């Protein structure tokens, strides 16, 4: 039986013409035979044929019923419908292009966001069983003291392996162009723990953690290519880092990166030899990486670490009491998650609006084709058959939209990688792969089916008798109009939510730009000058070297002023130092006040335009032999000497509990400087102290030069670099950037969020405008007769205009109200992205609603004006 069905299927598909001919003949013969019968029974031939036709119920209908029965029917009709669909869509090219474009825009945008979410949030980090990797950090973000690491490693059972890493920026010298490299020193456990094998050579071993044996390095693929031309014979070669010779023992494969956060630019890994530092409970500098032991959950590890830490806290008060275990991936993507999810939601709204618009068009076309549907239905097409045909059309639209959307997505992803905010983790992994492609096509087909179904159902439900009786008039129903109105309200609600999102981000951006950094970033060039590969780094030489360097830089014609600091605000590191104020009681260990520690050369405050509020800045007279001085910031002054003049007060950075009173190094406050942003643009001010480098020489192997220039600072980079190298050819210069660029990068995330949301909102606004325009145009066409009657009865144009506008505005109002309600809920999701504006900001909500109302008014005006131009005579005759 299966076989016979199969041969029938083949026959049906291949020999269709003969099949059709025979079917036609069979049914017609039947009618003739019926008539013959009736003639034999004594009926007149004419009457007999009429009766036979009635009894048969229509040749075409019977034939259609037989066809429905046939094997392969679905395939055949589907093909037919697709062909017919393409023909219909080509006939209405403008409609088709508009629908495809709207869909492609929505689908493309959501694919870009999906690929970002997929590669940044969903995919595991590129290490073996990456979900088992964790980091241990002070307060979940800061580094840890060496002795604590040593104790945890010895005492914890929750971790299979644990290792420590420390930031390192060595100078590579003995090559054509000395340069400063990003590197990590780390214990030998870390590389094997990641489960990525070396491409060449080996990792370093446990023995290299001993002081004196740490002179080995593993290179990243990029550095190997750049510095050594990808030479496979590089193993065993010696390179000079910070003036010491290191042997290259291994090269990692392309694409390998570590660490995935904080030291993301590292391309050199060397052993960490803690030596005597292993007993230190201060000098937090280590990030701890660990792999959870099999069967141990995150909660177990946290509990165990808390117990160990509590025990250590009793033994050694005030050291790393708030160490936290954080999953590595959480650490990497945690900050960006909220932004990405918000964008994903926004883009889903854009897609929904696009779909609503296409549904509009399909509904409108369904109405226009009511006559065609009625005829086909009268000729025996079943409801399912009609449904199938309408669906085929929307599927074609959806597929075309999907393919175009894929192109949009490809372009969008490239743009995201290029123009995306700085410092987004893993953004270079975002690409158009098969998952994104599948997502794009899946979304478009799904939208095609869902949003094609409603119009198709509506169209297929038309009563042929009613429709044909109306004689080709629109044949539309109130129900259809209601569906479209509902779509418009939905579109407006979604558009309003997007506008609110964009508005909130824009206000955030304005608030961020209004922040006073405490210095003037314009026309300031900065660069890091490192002396660790040069002889000047020897004790006693560096102070002299930097003074000479400043003299040379100041001699550059375009330079107005210049200064040096150890750590630049925002871009630079922050070193926190505890301090003890003279005459105040000694706080408990761990509860000492602490301050950001900055070393500066005279000229720094002047160059950065940081106003000195009281006293004086650091000056040339503050030499190594002069009395030790310090400049403090306003915040520190207010906090610790609230009602006194801080000038002349003294504090020390030496711990009075450990250093004999006579030996304490007292620093005298000589000046108070205005608060400036530290590392985080939006963070409130904290304590900061500025010490003269000359009195603290030798701390840190590099300094950051700041130079205020008379011309475009970027153009001064080269003469300044030459000036520096004229002092010593072996120093390295890196991170040459303007201060404005530093600030711009710090705020690139909110700026990007705002730009993206604004773009989405603009698309939404245009699409909703098109939607309400379509509905109102249609409403006017429907009411043409009524308007004609009213105008004939004396209604003024203004009356009619107001009436139509009122209908349109009612829709937009309903949309706005639901949008505001939705927006109030959804804007909470954005709370972490906002600054200086509340999630429920009434001004933003009001502004968005007003903008939407204006757009709606404009979109309704054209159809409303057309309505007033209806000539009553024409309108009435038209019926």
């Amino acid at each position, binding site marked *: 039986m299966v076989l016979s*069905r199969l041969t029938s299927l083949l026959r049906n598909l291949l020999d269709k013409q003969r099949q059709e001919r025979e079917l036609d003949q*069979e*049914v017609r*013969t039947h009618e003739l035979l*019926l008539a013959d019968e009736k003639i034999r029974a004594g009926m007149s031939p004419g009457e007999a044929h009429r009766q036979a036709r009635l009894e048969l*119920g229509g040749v075409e209908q019977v034939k259609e019923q*037989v066809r429905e*029965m046939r094997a392969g029917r679905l395939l055949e009709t589907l093909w037919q419908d697709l062909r017919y669909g393409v023909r219909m869509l080509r006939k209405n090219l403008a409609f088709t292009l508009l629908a495809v474009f709207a869909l492609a825009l929505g689908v493309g945008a959501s694919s870009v966001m999906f690929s970002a979410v997929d590669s940044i949030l969903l995919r595991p980090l590129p290490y073996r069983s990456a979900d088992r990797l964790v980091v241990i950090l002070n307060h979940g973000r800061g580094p840890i003291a060496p002795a604590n690491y040593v104790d945890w490693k010895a005492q914890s059972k929750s971790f299979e392996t644990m290792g420590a890493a420390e930031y390192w920026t060595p100078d590579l010298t003995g090559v054509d162009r000395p340069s400063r490299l990003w590197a990590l020193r780390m214990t030998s456990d870390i590389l094997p723990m990641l489960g990525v094998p070396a491409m060449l050579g080996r990792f370093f071993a446990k023995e290299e953690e001993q002081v004196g044996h740490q002179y080995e390095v593993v290179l990243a693929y990029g550095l190997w290519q750049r510095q050594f031309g990808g030479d496979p014979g590089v193993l065993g070669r010696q390179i000079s880092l910070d003036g010491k010779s290191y042997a290259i023992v291994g090269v990692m494969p392309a694409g390998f990166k570590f660490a995935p956060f904080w030291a993301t630019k590292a391309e050199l890994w060397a052993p960490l030899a803690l030596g005597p530092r292993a007993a230190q409970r201060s000098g937090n500098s280590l990030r701890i990486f660990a792999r959870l032991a099999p069967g141990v959950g995150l909660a177990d590890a946290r509990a165990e670490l808390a117990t160990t830490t509590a025990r250590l806290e009793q033994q050694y008060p005030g050291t790393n009491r708030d160490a936290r275990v954080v999953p590595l991936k959480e650490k990497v993507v945690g900050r960006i998650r909220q932004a990405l999810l918000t964008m994903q939601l926004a883009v889903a709204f854009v897609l929904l609006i696009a779909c609503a618009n296409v549904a509009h068009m399909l509904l409108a076309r369904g109405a226009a084709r009511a006559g065609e549907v009625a005829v086909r239905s009268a000729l025996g097409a079943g409801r399912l058959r009609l449904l199938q045909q309408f669906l085929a059309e929307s599927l074609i639209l959806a597929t075309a939209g999907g393919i175009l959307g894929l192109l949009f997505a490809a372009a969008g992803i490239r743009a995201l990688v290029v123009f995306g905010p700085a410092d987004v983790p893993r953004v270079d992994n975002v690409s158009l792969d098969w998952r994104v492609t599948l997502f794009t096509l899946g979304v478009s087909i799904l939208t095609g089916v869902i949003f094609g179904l409603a119009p198709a159902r509506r169209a297929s439900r038309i009563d042929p008798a009613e429709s044909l009786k109306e004689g080709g008039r629109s044949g539309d129903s109130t129900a259809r109009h209601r569906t479209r109105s509902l779509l418009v309200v939905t579109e407006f609600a979604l558009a309003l939510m997007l506008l609110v999102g964009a508005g909130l981000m824009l206000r955030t951006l304005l608030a961020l730009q209004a922040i006073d950094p405490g210095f003037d970033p314009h026309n300031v060039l900065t660069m890091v000058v490192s002396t660790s590969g040069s002889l000047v780094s020897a004790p006693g030489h560096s102070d002299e070297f930097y003074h000479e360097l400043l003299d040379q830089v100041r001699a550059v014609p375009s330079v107005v002023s210049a200064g040096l600091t150890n750590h630049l605000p925002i871009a630079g590191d922050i070193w926190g130092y505890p301090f003890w104020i003279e005459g105040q009681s000694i706080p408990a260990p761990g509860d000492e006040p602490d301050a950001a520690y900055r070393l500066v050369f005279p000229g720094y405050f002047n160059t950065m335009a940081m106003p000195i509020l009281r006293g004086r800045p650091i000056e040339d007279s503050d030499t190594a032999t002069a009395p030790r001085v310090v400049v403090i910031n306003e915040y520190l002054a207010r906090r610790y000497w609230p009602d006194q003049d801080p000038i002349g007060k003294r504090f020390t950075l030496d711990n009075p509990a450990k250093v004999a009173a006579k030996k304490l190094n007292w620093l005298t406050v000589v000046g108070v400087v205005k608060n400036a942003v530290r590392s985080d643009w939006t963070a409130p001010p904290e304590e900061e102290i500025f010490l003269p480098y000359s009195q603290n020489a030798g701390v840190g192997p590099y300094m950051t030069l700041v130079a205020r220039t008379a011309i475009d600072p970027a153009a001064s980079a080269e003469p300044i670099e030459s000036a520096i190298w004229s002092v010593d050819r072996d120093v390295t210069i890196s991170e040459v950037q303007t201060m404005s660029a530093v600030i711009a990068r710090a705020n690139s995330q909110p700026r990007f969020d705002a730009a993206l949301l604004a773009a989405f909102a603009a698309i939404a606004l245009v699409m909703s405008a098109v939607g309400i325009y379509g509905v109102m145009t249609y409403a006017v066409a429907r009411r043409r007769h009524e308007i004609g009657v009213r105008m004939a009865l004396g209604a003024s144009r203004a009356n009619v205009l107001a009436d139509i506008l009122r209908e349109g505005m009612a829709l937009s109002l309903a949309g706005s109200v639901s949008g505001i309600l939705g927006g109030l809920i959804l804007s909470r999701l954005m709370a972490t992205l906002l600054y200086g504006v509340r999630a429920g900001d009434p001004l933003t909500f009001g502004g968005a609603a007003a903008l939407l109302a204006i757009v709606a008014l404009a979109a309704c005006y054209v159809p409303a004006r057309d309505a007033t131009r209806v000539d009553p005579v024409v309108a009435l005759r038209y019926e």
Partner: protein
Amino acid sequence: MPPDQTNLLQGTLDMMILKALALSEMHGLGISRRIEQITQGTFQVKPGSLFPALHRMEEQGWLASHWGESDNGRRAKYYKLTGAGRRQLEAETRRWGRIALAITRTLEAS
């Protein structure tokens, strides 16, 4: 009152068509009239049900067809039972017999 066409169970229609064709081959109208005659007018099979059923049963291999000439000289499509069709009729007859018996017993139970 003849029952509504749409309520005529498909299986029942199939069975009656098979039974009508059990003795000799026939064209569509012949089958229709034969069923009317057997059921003494209780069932009237309309073309809209008859032809889809005939084509379906042919696709299933129960019927075979060929073009022949009717009594009054018209070219008509004639249907006849195949071996499979005959077996299907027997199966249907047995099944129907069981159902009828069961229903009769149900109705006669006191």
